[in-house]
């Protein structure tokens, strides 16, 4: 939790910067505590304790700008650092577009840090012995036997809990804070078949609340996923209907968000340049930013400039509704500023009603009848200027809505705009702990390369 002393430190730092002749300053305090217990094959393998605290300084001086950070926050070390930082900021070239955001854009409702509803006091009460118990609870080793013909070779598990505090203040009266706890489980298993071929599987769960997590399910699901990969040769290349599991579907949204960011748009390094207000994607594609849903992991009331976030559409019915423009990029582009980036993205189900609606993965597979469902990506990239992409995938062939066999060693290749024009459907099954709430998706006519 942010304390009076934290605020005093940040105010003191701002005063030090202004004393160096700065016109304005913004200072952010980031602090976190994390405790972690890792297991290997059902035994404790590692315990770690992490305590971090640092200050990030944005200095506006003589029409120039610089950004700095330090974790040495004792007064004498900080004063010396601020002096050097101010000197370096003065050495930059002048840029009149560097300035603090206008007062009316700044968040005024993140006062205690608890507004987003993401703090659970139970985190402070977790004991070392409980952490060990939690980590062991997630393990499948010794509890879930591998199916016949498979051997469980290795299992690595992890439990961690953490508390993260953020305080941002500027020389024009901004004061915002945010506190968030996190409880996380993750398990990765490696199995081998009778021929010695190895397969791995991973499962995780996470929440800002200690209660309601499926620890035991992590090891079991990781084992199931690894064993399901057995004997997974590539299919012949061709065009297939592609379903993408919700767990990994965010990978196909990230390039869109990057392309809508001012840093890409202003440099002409965006395949969505000039797309604002245009219908670029399929009718059913609606993507929202919902940073103000209280209690939803990842919610936050302000961005890194202290600008108030808002629940808004990013893409609605295939039409681009929003660019992400911070104060500087908006100035450069001669446009109205928005927020620096998307905070908590949610894709709406499609179709939203009627017989074609598929609420979950199984229903979506039935609706699509046959194709390939992607359950994980293996590398790849998307060219930000053109939207051309190519990703390695693994997943399953499905026919008549039922999984037939695993596939591996294949690639999907295409262009982001065209892919999203071929968007068929979105289920409604995104787990709230996903960083992006993207449900299971379906696309038509995707190029798969394989055997």
């Amino acid at each position, binding site marked *: 939790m942010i304390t009076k002393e934290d605020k005093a430190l940040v105010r003191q730092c701002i005063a030090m910067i202004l004393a160096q002749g700065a016109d304005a300053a913004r200072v952010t305090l980031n602090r976190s505590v994390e405790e972690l217990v890792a297991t290997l094959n059902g035994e404790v393998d590692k315990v770690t304790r992490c305590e971090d605290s640092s200050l990030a300084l944005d200095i506006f001086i003589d029409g120039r700008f610089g950004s700095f950070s330090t974790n040495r926050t004792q007064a004498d070390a900080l004063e010396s650092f601020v002096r050097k930082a101010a000197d370096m*900021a003065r050495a930059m070239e002048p840029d009149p577009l560097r300035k603090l955001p206008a007062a009316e854009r700044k968040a005024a409702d993140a006062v205690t840090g608890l507004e987003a509803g993401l703090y659970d006091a139970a985190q402070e009460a977790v004991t070392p012995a409980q952490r060990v118990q939690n980590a062991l609870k997630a393990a499948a080793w010794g509890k879930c036997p591998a199916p016949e013909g498979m051997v469980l070779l290795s299992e690595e598990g992890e439990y961690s809990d953490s508390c993260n505090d953020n305080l941002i203040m500027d020389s024009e009266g901004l004061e915002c804070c945010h506190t968030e706890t996190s409880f996380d489980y993750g398990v990765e298993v490696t199995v081998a078949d009778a021929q010695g071929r190895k397969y791995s599987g991973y499962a995780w769960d996470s929440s800002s609340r200690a209660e309601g997590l499926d620890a035991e399910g992590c090891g079991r699901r990781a084992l199931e996923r690894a064993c399901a990969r057995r004997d997974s040769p590539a299919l012949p290349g061709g065009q297939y209907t592609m379903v993408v599991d919700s767990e990994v579907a965010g990978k196909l949204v990230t390039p869109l968000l990057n392309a809508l960011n001012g840093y890409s748009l202003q440099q002409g390094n965006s395949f969505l340049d000039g797309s604002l207000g245009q219908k670029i994607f399929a009718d059913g594609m609606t993507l929202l930013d919902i940073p103000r849903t209280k209690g939803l992991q990842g919610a936050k009331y302000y961005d890194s400039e202290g600008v108030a976030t808002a629940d808004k559409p990013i893409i609605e019915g295939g039409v681009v509704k929003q660019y992400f423009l911070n104060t500087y990029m908006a100035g450069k582009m001669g446009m109205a500023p928005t927020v620096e980036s998307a905070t908590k993205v949610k894709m709406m189900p499609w179709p939203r009603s009627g017989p074609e609606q598929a609420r979950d993965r199984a229903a979506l597979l039935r609706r699509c009848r046959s194709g390939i469902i992607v359950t994980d990506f293996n590398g790849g990239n998307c060219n930000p200027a053109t939207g051309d992409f190519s990703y390695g995938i693994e997943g399953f062939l499905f026919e008549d809505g039922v999984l037939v066999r695993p596939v591996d060693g294949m690639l999907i290749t295409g262009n982001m705009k065209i892919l999203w024009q071929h968007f068929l459907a979105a289920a409604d099954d995104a787990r709230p702990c996903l960083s992006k709430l993207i449900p299971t998706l379906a696309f038509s006519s995707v190029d798969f390369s394989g055997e």
Partner: protein
Amino acid sequence: MKLKTNGFGVSLEDLQALVAEGLSGGGDWCDLFFEYSAYTSLMLRDGIVSSGGCHEDYGCGIRVLNGEKTGYAYAESTDMRALRKAARSAASIASGGSVKACGTPHSVECPHNLYPARRDWREVESAAIISTLQRIESEIRRRESRTLKVMATFSCDMSEVLMFNSLGELTQDLRPMGSLAVTAIFSNGKKVINNNASRSYRAGAEMLGDSVVNALVEEVVRGIDEAFEARRPRGGKMSVVMGAGASGILLHEAMGHAFEADFNRKGQSVFSERMGQKICRSGISIVDDGCLPGNRGACNFDDEGVPGQKTYMVTDGVLTSFLHDRISAKFYGVAPTGNGRRESFRYNPIPRMRATYMENGSDGSVEDLIASVKKGIYVDRFSNGQVKIGEGDFTFFVKSGRLIENGRLTAPVSDINIIGNGPRALADIRAVASDLTIDEGQWTCGKEQSAPVSCGIPSVLVEHLTVGGGQ
């Protein structure tokens, strides 16, 4: 005895006391990793350098080992109260057993300084760097009239490290790193493309000369005509000729990670049971080398205080060594190979690559390799890669290349992923040229933590890789 403990404000007695605290639970190893790093960056965008800054990070990581189990904690100060608290947290990995004593402190000298910065980054004026960035932009615009935008970034890091362990070994290192990276956007009125290039060295400001500027500019403007024409190939399995240098990403992803001993110790790697076996054709040797002077992957010492060394992983086609930290070396009963590396004092060390490359072969030139392929692809620029350790399935993303048709380079291609399987790809290397090049780009490996690495390779011909493309 007087040993320097650098500028961290701790005495030898303090170091011994902290190790004693770490071993107090019955652990059998304790080490301390003090680090002060100062990172500076400057960015040119739209013709001006109007953003930049400095970031400093200071603290000490304390690790206690109990067999192969690890206790780890750190403090962001060198105040003894904070350090003792961290040592007690790390000590909790052990409970019971005899308490070991700390060895007598003694300094371990660096046999050869692999990165003697002749000009300390801390003494370089921003104006000199700004002028270098501006020169890069003006040269690119002079060379290529279709230039739309240029973004050029400079960064440097000076990291002071002091390590002490329960054997009493005291090790110090001063690690410079300087990097320049350029992204340029070009337009021919119909199509927009981007191109990038970077250079990174464990060196001081002496690297900021004409040669690095010229090399970057040359790489950024090279192949622009082809890039405007580039198209996707028809995807599928084919022969791939990988050009010398950056194609070393093949070794890093397809083999290097699977040779890291933590994955093998835990039975996860596809190579776990293959030590001493022939895994590719004779004549192929694959090395991980921490001793290339000024190289981004060079290590006077690794982050466990083990001197930098050159490790043959594959010798004449036979798997001869994994890459070890102290934990895995003890497990396998071998000497550490100097691969125990970490991102910063916030992380415990784990086996990591340094500069990974294949030694020269004797199958002629890259032209000979291309001439031997009826239908395939030649690739020479990459952006990123990934591997699944257990399965051995790897990918890397190709920024540019050309089709090979009947032994000749034809249409340019770009933005394709290539996928393969490590052991199979190794076995499918059909020819190795004699043009070994170590790439000098800003490669960073992301295995749990970030670590600067480099890679290299002579031109090689690999059969049966799956290339992404249209259908």
